[in-house]
């Protein structure tokens, strides 16, 4: 169910919402669109744009309500995770920012302290800036450094502002970080920050575009990471906030070899149907989709060990990431 404008406007400008509505019902060029980030290659206007994109927000809000009311312990909305959406501007394939709206909704309706964990390969800029001065929302983003990659922000020096100083945490990882350093970083910081912050609920963004097959990014992780990320997030929710956790999707641009496997793992972890490392992809699924796929589909849920060629500067990258973690942790809550 689409949320009323009142809920979208917890985060988004009313004027922007109007433009999104009109752009989805106009033939040809819509002159106002460009100044709202719409009508670009990344964010083309399309028919019924408002209806489609607000429906995604509705999904994440419903997930939040079901978890907060105790109907379910946790919930997953894989259509969500549109973390680049800004207050008044579409950006990076995102129109409305379901994560930002859900957090604002949690603040207003439940007065909840929200821990937001973003493991998309891109910096979670839209969510960070929406709550940059709010000490009741801690945004944690692990991403590939913005030196080269979109959106360019997410330096560890972005720590929040005013009352919210220390409540924005950024870990910009080096290109070609790979599994070991990625997981070491994640497992180092998440428990520390979560225990220090003591959230009432956790919201996660599970973009799977850090995978080695992803055509837009360079972190080069394997499928193993997409089992560990939700597993630890869920464990922290169990330890700190009665298991309350809502997971969303996010980016992922190898839609054949990465996204179905990665989000199967996210779903399996949250729904408690733990999947074995040796599990094979069902034959029927492979047969059904191989014809459409431009690349050979992966026959196993996890990537074979050593599928990817070794990366020359591994040690240097690992050390750099460790130093980044030290600096990023300087001013945030720790427990």
């Amino acid at each position: 169910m689409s949320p009323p404008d009142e809920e979208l406007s917890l985060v988004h400008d009313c004027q922007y919402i109007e433009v999104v509505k009109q752009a989805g019902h106009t033939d040809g060029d819509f002159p106002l669109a460009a100044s709202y980030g719409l009508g670009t290659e990344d964010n083309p206007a399309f028919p019924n744009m408002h209806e489609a994109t607000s429906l995604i927000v509705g999904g994440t809000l419903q997930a939040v309500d079901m978890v907060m009311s105790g109907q379910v312990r946790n919930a997953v909305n894989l259509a969500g995770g549109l973390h680049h959406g800004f207050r008044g501007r579409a950006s990076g394939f995102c129109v409305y920012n379901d994560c930002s709206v859900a957090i604002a909704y949690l603040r207003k309706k439940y007065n909840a302290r929200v821990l937001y964990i973003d493991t998309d390969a891109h910096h979670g800029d839209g969510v960070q800036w929406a709550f940059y001065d709010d000490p009741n929302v801690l945004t944690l983003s692990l991403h590939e450094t913005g030196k080269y990659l979109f959106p360019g922000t997410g330096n560890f020096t972005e720590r929040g502002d005013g009352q919210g100083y220390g409540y924005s945490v950024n870990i910009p990882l080096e290109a070609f970080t790979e599994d070991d350093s990625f997981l070491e970083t994640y497992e180092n910081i998440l428990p520390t920050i979560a225990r220090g912050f003591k959230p009432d609920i956790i919201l996660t963004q599970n973009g799977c575009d850090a995978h080695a097959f992803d055509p837009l990014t360079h972190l080069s992780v394997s499928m193993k990471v997409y089992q560990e990320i939700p597993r630890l997030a869920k464990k922290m929710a169990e330890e700190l906030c009665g298991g309350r956790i809502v997971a969303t999707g996010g980016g992922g641009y190898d839609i054949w070899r990465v996204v179905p496997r990665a989000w199967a793992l996210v779903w399996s972890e949250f729904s408690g149907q733990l999947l074995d490392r040796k599990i094979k992809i069902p034959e029927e699924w492979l047969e059904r989709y191989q014809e459409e796929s431009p690349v050979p589909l992966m026959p196993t849920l996890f990537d074979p060990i050593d599928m990817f060629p070794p990366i020359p500067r591994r040690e240097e990258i690992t050390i750099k990431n460790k130093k980044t973690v030290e600096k990023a942790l300087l001013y945030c809550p720790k427990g």
Partner: protein
Amino acid sequence: MLIEDIMKRDVITVEPTDTIRTVLLKVQQYRIRHIPVVEKGNLVGIISDRDVRDACPSILGQPHDDDESIFCTPVSNIMRKDVITSSPLDFVEEAAYVLYENGIGCLPVVSGEHDQLIGIITETDILHTLVELMGVNFPSSHIEVEVDDRIGILADVTQLFKIAKCNVSSVLVFPGRRPTKKNVVFRVQTIDPRKVVSLIKGAGYHVVWPKDPGE
């Protein structure tokens, strides 16, 4: 961008007849390193924290009878009179070059025949401005291309961004690592630079970034 756009206008100053003690107090109070010396609003010299330190008795040494007289010395005795200055209409890059060439930390900004002091610019101000100029003011991706150092090359490359409908938010050109080459860095407002990168590669240019793991 001009110096008058970024200079600091309320300048802390001393008079030539003020004492070293006054300079010391102002250096500490305002946490500054250089103080222009003015007479009737016109610049006549400059004094730095280091000039003062050099003139003062060592805190390690024994007290001397002349300590007090040093603190009471007028600024005019130790100030430097040949001051390198800037004009409000200088470009920021000119001022940066002057600071760099002379190995100095600040430039008083003067105007008129009698060098009326109207502002001051420090290396920190300039660095800050450059950071802003090169910075990320829009969500964008970084594309670096190595090109031949010849006329019209920038127009040729930027044409490809137009074809790919890619909005460029900043461009930086600097000497390449290899002779006869230049590197151009574009920040472009897209999350997916694949189309423009393949156009650039297709046109025969060397794309330095984004790169593949093997490169």
